[in-house]
């Protein structure tokens, strides 16, 4: 783990008034996932927004894009892991999830996207206790 924060001064936005979106019973609480480095949600840091997630229930596919706060964010893979774990909780197991950084938002976009979607790498990463703990902290933190 790095000693200093990658991005010490992120821009923080006010939490949006959540308009009830209950026409489908999808769980949109991915936005409340805490950023790995700051006590703010991914939504507050504009990493995620309503437009970030598209779900195709017929095919059972989910595409989620997120915008890291800075171009060289090394936390991108951690955020990706958090999103994947959260989505696994909210959707039936057969749903296929693709996670990408929004185009142009990261210096190593292609490399990051490849790692975010390699099933074997994800499985191995989630078996790493340190990484798993960080993911759990981001998902289950009560600070929001």
């Amino acid at each position, binding site marked *: 783990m790095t000693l200093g924060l990658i991005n010490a001064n992120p821009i923080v936005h006010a939490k949006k008034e959540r308009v009830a979106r209950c026409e489908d019973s999808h769980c949109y609480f991915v936005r409340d996932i805490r950023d790995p480095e700051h006590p703010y949600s991914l939504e507050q840091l504009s990493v995620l927004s309503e437009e970030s997630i598209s779900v195709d229930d017929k095919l059972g596919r989910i595409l989620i894009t997120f915008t890291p706060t800075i171009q060289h964010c090394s936390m991108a893979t951690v955020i990706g892991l958090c999103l994947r774990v959260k989505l696994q909780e909210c959707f039936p*197991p*057969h749903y*296929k999830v693709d996670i990408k950084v929004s185009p142009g938002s990261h210096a190593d976009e292609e490399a990051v996207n*490849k790692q975010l979607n*390699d*099933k*074997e*790498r994800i*499985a*191995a990463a989630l*078996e790493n206790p340190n990484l798993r703990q960080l993911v759990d902290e981001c998902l289950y933190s009560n600070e929001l």
Partner: protein
Amino acid sequence: MDFDDEGSNFELKEIQTLSGHTDRVWSLAWNPATGTDDAQPVIASCSGDKTVRIWERSALTRSWDCKAVLEETHTRTVRSCTWSPSGKLLATASFDATTAIWENVGGDFQCVSTLEGHENEVKSVSWNASESLLATCSRDKTVWIWEVMPGNEFECASVLQGHTQDVKMIKWHPTMDILFSCSYDNTIKVWAEDDTGDWHCIQTIVSGHSSTVWAISFNAGGDKMVTCSDDLTLKVWEADIEGMRSGNNQVLWKHLSTLSGYHDRTIFSVHWSREGIIASGAADDAIRFFVESKDSVVDGPSYRLLLKKEKAHDMDVNVVQWSPGENRVMASASDDGTIKIWELATSSN
């Protein structure tokens, strides 16, 4: 074998579903010494639940049962398993960075050796045809070659560096001591021993796949191989087998054909049957079969889709393996935690 003549109606019949693993099943292997008149077919499977299961089909009921659960050895996901050519030993590769060797001692599987050395997750393990060598590969980007010594001892003969990323699978050529590896770095490497006994890379296929190459499989003759990738294609390669046999290490594998447009999600596994049917298992839960097309003319053989089995499993298909014994019998395993036994049959209309 000309599949165009057999009336074009094939179907994949589900024989049985094997349940028991409590997490995704990553891989399986048919014991090559079984499936004959004397020995009932046996399959080993490995899982994210950290165990290996041994399944055997009963001679009496023709039904598959779980004969053994090999547990409390690997401390993380078991990613790959493979039997030695004689069927006497089973090698299992794990995310715990070790490779375990198991022997069936009077019906009881015992871990007789543990190979350590990789820095992180071991992804694949393969025995050469004469059972004198074992190869392993890992996310640490290396391929290790181990010599099989008497008394179940294994000695590291070489640590092969060259891949720039995670090595996903390694496979020995079916008849010759030439090793093939494929990687997250999108390349396939060919490794051979020179006169002084040193192993090195004799070919790197770089301009083939445009994303992670997940698996390699050889045809029965050993003069062709097929690879599958995250780039959604299968690629067929060929080499001059006679040249290879005469010890010419300069023989290169050349691209023969690309099968694209058939898969829309990552292809994790590919296996070439003795008869020439290529089976693929993909992240869209489907299994597909391809055969050489007789219609191809000018640029050499091309391949056509024989059959697509949608929803073969409820989740990603991680592995497809043809039975070494029975004709057109195949096994597959999935993220859904099950293994399925299939028969590719011609359907009567």
